[in-house]
């Protein structure tokens, strides 16, 4: 039973998605598990063949209990081939990204010259791969259980993490103008929300200042190798979850918007995956829709920082020697002072400012 959240201690197996003898590949969904935060899809992290299911559906067991036996790739009856050796025509950038995202480039439909797989093809495949499975009957998370889970995580955070808070107001004018122009060209289903630009700016800024992107475990900060951006999503019945958009810094803004829409839908309808629930390396919470000016949030342990985003509102802004009305957004960072000094957290905020000033480059 995998840990699907910082304070998960038990899980209930709802349904097996595989049977003995089934071949599985890294990333395949093998089971649905009910936690305090709802039903989560459990993935397998290596290729192999399911030898034996060790739990009956309905069984509730502690985290760490073996669920199934899977014969690994080394013993499997089919060969595994690294993407670069498939003979599929693809650009080096596409192969590199596919490798980083765990995508088999041979499965990606190429749109480049002579059907070559491009970096954009891989990004599109990555966004599509997060589409929900169909036909799974799910139960809504019990609100009292979810409240207890949130309470446990937040209490642990405030007990263990010395939070420091910084904030800054950002001229959102360039980003708003870019968005308006971009959205005028897009059909309604492809349009972007400001949240997509803000997330991309944060993800790139985390690459600029890696001290905010990682986990504090066993008394040591472990910088993350990728930016998996957690997004706090409120649920309609109350409560919230913070699943991650994996490799957010490498997704084009359009793909990131697709990923965000998909993540919000699955957070509210069911179908989040274990890797999304546990993979976050930095989280963003955006309360601007509710008219909030500033958000000073609580870090999601074992992460070391949380970015808060307020509403985008017209404010008086000094531009050159004039006071003008500009769309302004206040962005804050809550940082774990064990891992991140104020100076570095300030540089991180400054990196977000710089990234948003050049939206075309996001």
């Amino acid at each position: 039973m995998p840990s699907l959240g910082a304070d998960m201690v038990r899980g209930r197996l709802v349904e097996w998605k595989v049977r003995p003898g089934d071949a599985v590949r890294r990333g395949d969904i093998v089971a649905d598990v009910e936690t305090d935060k709802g039903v989560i899809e459990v993935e397998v992290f290596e290729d192999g063949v399911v030898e034996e299911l060790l739990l009956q559906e309905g069984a509730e067991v502690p985290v760490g209990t073996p669920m199934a036996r899977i014969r690994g790739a080394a013993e499997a009856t089919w060969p595994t081939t690294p993407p670069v050796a498939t003979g599929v025509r693809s650009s080096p950038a596409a192969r590199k990204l596919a490798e980083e995202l765990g995508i088999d480039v041979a499965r990606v439909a190429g749109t480049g010259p002579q059907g070559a797989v491009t970096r954009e093809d891989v990004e599109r495949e990555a966004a599509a791969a997060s589409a929900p499975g169909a036909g799974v009957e799910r139960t809504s998370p019990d609100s009292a259980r979810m409240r207890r889970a949130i309470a446990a995580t937040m209490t642990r955070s405030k007990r263990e993490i010395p939070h420091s808070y910084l904030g800054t107001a950002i001229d959102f004018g360039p980003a708003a103008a870019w968005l308006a122009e971009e959205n005028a060209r897009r059909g309604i289903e492809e349009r972007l929300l400001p949240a997509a630009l803000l997330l991309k700016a944060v993800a790139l800024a985390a690459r600029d200042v890696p001290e905010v992107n990682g986990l504090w475990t066993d008394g040591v900060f472990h910088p993350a190798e990728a930016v998996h951006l957690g997004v706090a999503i409120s649920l309609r019945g109350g409560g919230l979850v913070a699943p991650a958009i994996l490799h957010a810094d490498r997704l084009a803004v359009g793909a990131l918007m697709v990923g965000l829409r998909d993540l919000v839908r699955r957070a509210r309808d069911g179908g989040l995956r274990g890797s999304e629930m546990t993979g976050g390396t930095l989280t963003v919470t955006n309360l601007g829709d509710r008219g909030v000016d500033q958000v000073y949030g609580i870090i999601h342990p074992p992460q070391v920082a949380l970015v808060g985003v307020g509403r985008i509102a017209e404010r008086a802004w000094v531009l050159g020697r004039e006071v003008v009305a500009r769309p302004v957004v206040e962005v804050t960072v809550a940082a774990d002072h064990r891992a991140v000094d104020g100076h570095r957290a300030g540089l991180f905020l400054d990196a977000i400012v710089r990234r948003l000033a050049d939206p075309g480059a996001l």
Partner: protein
Amino acid sequence: MTTAEARAALERALLRIAPEVDPGTLDPRASLREQIDLDSMDMLNLLIEIHRTTGVDIPEEDYPKLGSLEECVDYLVARDPTTRERSGA
């Protein structure tokens, strides 16, 4: 598209976004976002759903015209190509 057809399409779209809502209880003149706690993503998904089911194009600059149930219905009736054909517009 008649007013009743527009209202029905809107209610179906709303129920996909907020299944717990009883559309009959909504104040047609009050803000949808305020009444049923819709965020930007919900509103975008609602407009996408309306577009999918009615075929009505909704440019981004028109979003502010779609604040309440009544405004949405009026907008759909006015923008629906079949309405225009029937009225000879």
